[in-house]
């Protein structure tokens, strides 16, 4: 059984205490793109229960003005950074639903800075994928009939306007909300997905573009949902901001 350790005050009915975390127990699994070994080992770690919200991020920018729209250099975040923060940095200027939506249009540099401010970090790809495997009732969601189709359905629905509020999709086996169905999420080592985007050669990445890439190849050809996540991550550059891309933070646990 999972024992939920919360780094902040207990979850209320609203459940939006900033930075609430839960423990994800360690384990090993086969990620879509293998490294050198087939199985990836993940040590137990803490993960935010919710993606970082607009309210959370507003607080961060108020305390760290170098990360406001005007002060952030283009090399660290492109011109769509925080484009929805149209009313300034005062939370009272925004409606409640906006404040509870996951923050998006943030770059990798910005997400890292936020997590560092909370004395956390972004999760690694393997940590994120490991935590995301679970459905509501099983640590391995592939056992759960219909779970895969539900994820596929999310990709089939276009984004209409702004995303829903955090906590509005499902709570998984570990007590984490919104790993699927709300927004894409940054990971710390998004640059470790060795793909060119030319997916026909990406099955085993081109030797000449990538040194040592002979070790990199897809382990499953029909996990379309995983393909889409990896493809999305590999299309990103660190300064990119995207309307459907947010993040949540993680923290290592002493082993």
């Amino acid at each position: 059984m999972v024992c939920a350790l919360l780094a902040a005050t207990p979850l209320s009915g609203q459940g939006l205490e900033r930075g609430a975390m839960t423990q994800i127990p360690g384990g090993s699994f086969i990620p879509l793109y293998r490294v050198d070994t087939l199985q990836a080992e993940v040590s137990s770690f803490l993960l935010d229960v919710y993606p970082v919200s607009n309210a959370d991020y507003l607080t961060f920018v108020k305390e760290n003005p170098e990360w406001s729209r005007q002060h952030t250099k283009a090399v660290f975040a492109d011109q769509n950074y925080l484009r929805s923060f149209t009313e300034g940095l005062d939370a009272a200027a925004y409606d409640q639903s906006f404040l509870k939506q996951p923050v998006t249009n943030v770059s990798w540099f910005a997400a890292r800075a936020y997590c560092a401010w909370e004395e956390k970090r972004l999760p690694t790809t393997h940590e994120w994928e490991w935590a995301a495997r679970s459905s509501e009732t099983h640590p391995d969601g592939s056992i759960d009939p219909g779970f895969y189709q539900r994820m596929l359905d999310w990709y089939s629905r276009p984004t209409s306007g702004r995303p829903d509020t955090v906590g509005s999709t499902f709570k998984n086996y570990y007590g984490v909300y919104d790993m699927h169905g709300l927004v894409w999420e940054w990971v710390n080592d998004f640059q470790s997905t060795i793909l060119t985007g030319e997916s026909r050669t990406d099955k085993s990445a081109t030797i000449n573009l990538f040194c040592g890439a002979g070790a990199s190849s897809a382990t499953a050809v029909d996990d379309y949902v995983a393909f889409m996540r990896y493809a999305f991550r590999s299309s990103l550059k660190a300064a990119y901001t995207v309307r459907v891309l947010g993040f949540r933070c993680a923290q290592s646990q002493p082993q």
Partner: protein
Amino acid sequence: MMPVRISLAFTLLFLIACQSEKHTEDVEVSIEPLSDYSIYHLPGKWVNQQSDTLKLEALQGKIVVASMVYTQCNAACPYLISEMKQVESFLGREKLLEEVVFLLISFDPLADTPQELQSFATELGLDPERWILVQGTEDLVLEIAALLNTKYKRVGDIHFAHSNIISVLNREGVLVYQREGYDTSIEGLFKAITKLTQ
């Protein structure tokens, strides 16, 4: 476009004709406000093969030809470095060597200590007048790789799978050209650099 703002962290020092490649201590050099796209905005300190600490903005004023490698790499990295040396010979013939610096950044700060970098440089005959080899923290490596669009990951204890890229930065540290892979000619590299010298 965001307005250019000079961060408080920058100390404005106006130096006249200081084009020396040897940088000691934390000498910060900036002639004018850096472009918003310059990678030299990345804060942090690096250590070079002579064990000197160095900040990226010290490279301002030079054209930088850069690549990310690691000393234990025996596949593509030696090839990339030999191509950079070809660029060096070409520039020598064109009498443009004064303008250019060659920067090698290590993926592996733990194994690639300054001493390792130094013996690596000596082994490969890299002229200390213009070759700078640096290492930084793992976090800094992650960030500079992001800025240089270089994908990488550890495979096993020693090796890395990584993109094979040679980048060109202009005198302000803005990334202006990248050549990925090594099956295409390096004509493009020559052209990109020559263009910057005009």
